[in-house]
């Protein structure tokens, strides 16, 4: 009897003590955490949680953040672009736009633009016939690339392979065409291009310098022909009504924060290196004689002096001079200028 009792007490002691100690530890830590979660509670913006639930939750890192939660936080607090989620695609962008409301609408939507007008079969001068792995990254290492211009497109379409949205297609000449509706400005092609020819441009700016050559004028013409390369002459820079173009290293660059999309530079470029998607389709300004009070504001903002008229007299637009930049339209206090 006493033996059984002894055994049972030792058994109770052997099992009981660990249970008590570990149980007490767990209880204590649980209590501390419960209290801490109240004491150290941090208010999280409800939009962050909503965006996290809208995102796919794959934590793939395509957006450049560590995970979906990090991206949601960046969207709400740092104003990160909402279109960086590759797996989510357009549906997720729409969801996030809904959550973010007006802030998303105000954000600049961008599109990828290839800053080179070479790269096709008909418009590229070749140094040699490249016959290796069909990748720009590989070709660029073979004697500086197969094309004569060491800045230009090699036409092996790494950008197309990198695009997960099927936004880059190849036309009959072998040139890359970017579909503005499909492009989400994810930047995958920007990274894929070993020559760094692709940049993201605001989608509402349609004038591009289609060259990245830093060669001096004659050298650039020698390797690319006379109707493609930027020769760094600076005419566009001088003509630009808003000083948005700067020329460095024989290459003009457009500052899209300043650019007003007027397309004047494309018309003056001697080598046609500047592409203007709106060329020929811009509307001209017209002043409604009923509304004009002769305040002269429109004449002052016009970059090409196409508007004339005395103070308190009716103003008129010289249609030949007007480049359709629409600078005067929002400035008119009587809303009397229309684009026709």
């Amino acid at each position, binding site marked *: 009897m006493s033996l059984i009792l002894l055994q049972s007490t030792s058994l109770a002691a052997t099992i009981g003590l*660990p249970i008590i*100690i570990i149980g007490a*530890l767990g209880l204590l830590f649980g209590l501390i*955490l419960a209290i*801490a979660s109240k004491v150290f509670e941090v208010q999280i913006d409800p939009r962050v949680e909503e965006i996290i639930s809208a995102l796919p939750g794959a934590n793939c890192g395509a957006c450049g953040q560590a995970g979906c939660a990090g991206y949601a936080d960046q969207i709400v607090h740092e104003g990160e672009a909402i279109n960086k989620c590759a797996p989510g695609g357009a549906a997720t962008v729409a969801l996030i736009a809904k959550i973010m409301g007006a802030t998303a609408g105000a954000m600049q939507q961008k599109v990828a633009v290839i800053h080179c007008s070479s790269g096709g079969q008909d418009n590229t001068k070749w140094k040699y016939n490249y016959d290796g792995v069909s990748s720009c990254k590989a070709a660029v290492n073979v004697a500086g690339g197969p094309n004569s211009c060491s800045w230009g497109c090699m036409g092996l379409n790494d950008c197309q392979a990198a695009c997960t949205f099927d936004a880059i297609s190849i036309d009959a000449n072998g040139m890359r065409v970017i579909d503005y509706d499909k492009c989400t400005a994810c930047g995958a092609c920007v990274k894929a291009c070993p020559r760094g020819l692709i940049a993201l441009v605001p989608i509402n700016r349609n004038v591009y310098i289609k060259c990245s050559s830093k060669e001096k004028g004659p050298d650039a013409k020698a390797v690319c022909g006379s109707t493609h390369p930027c020769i760094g002459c600076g005419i566009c820079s001088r003509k630009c009504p808003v000083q948005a173009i700067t020329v460095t290293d024989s290459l003009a660059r457009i500052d899209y924060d300043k650019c007003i999309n007027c397309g004047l530079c494309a018309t003056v470029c001697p080598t046609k290196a500047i592409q203007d998607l709106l060329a020929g389709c811009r509307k001209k300004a017209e002043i409604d004689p009923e509304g004009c009070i002769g305040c002269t504001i429109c004449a002052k903002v016009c970059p090409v002096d196409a508007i004339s008229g005395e103070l308190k007299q009716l103003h008129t637009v010289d249609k030949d001079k007007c480049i359709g930049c629409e600078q005067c339209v929002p400035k008119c206090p009587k809303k009397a200028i229309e684009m026709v």
Partner: protein
Amino acid sequence: MGYIGEIFVMAMTAIFIQNFVLARFLGLCPYLGVSKKLDSAMGMGMAVIFVMTLASAITFLINKYLLMPNELMYLQTIAFILTIASLVQFVEMVIQKNAPALYKSLGVFLPLITTNCAVLGVAILNTGALRSDGVTAYNFLDSVLNGFFSGVGFTVVLLAMAGLRMRMEMVELPRSMKGMPIALILAGIMALAFYGFMGFKI
């Protein structure tokens, strides 16, 4: 040998000779998972140093004042995991409230390593570790320092791995070798290289 020498031996042992990843093969999950980019590897490394140091300190106390007097050493694993997980959770809350900047750089990594085997490993190895004289068991300061240096060792190889993998990204590889296969081969070669340190006698 003074205490400074003792610390030096401990540091060399933890970082090179008995490196947690490449000699003890602990903590391989973050070693392969978070070594794609240098900056996230850095964040992970800092979090591991932080958690290892903290875990060494708290588990030493738990072991010495709770488990050893009651002869419950066989409960180390469960007691340590419980302690480390709650402690890290608690610290995470405190950081989130009081140091948002630190939380931003460390926050995402902390929950990932609460129950990591390297962290548990340093806690358990500390309890049985001896100083270089081969007799004295680690005291509190020894344990904390060993935890810190083990974390440093982990960070060193994690950063080296991240640097190598970033370079490997630019190399044309056969399709079957891309990603994890080449990372595992890299890890194996690095482990072989670290075996060279094994013969060192300080």
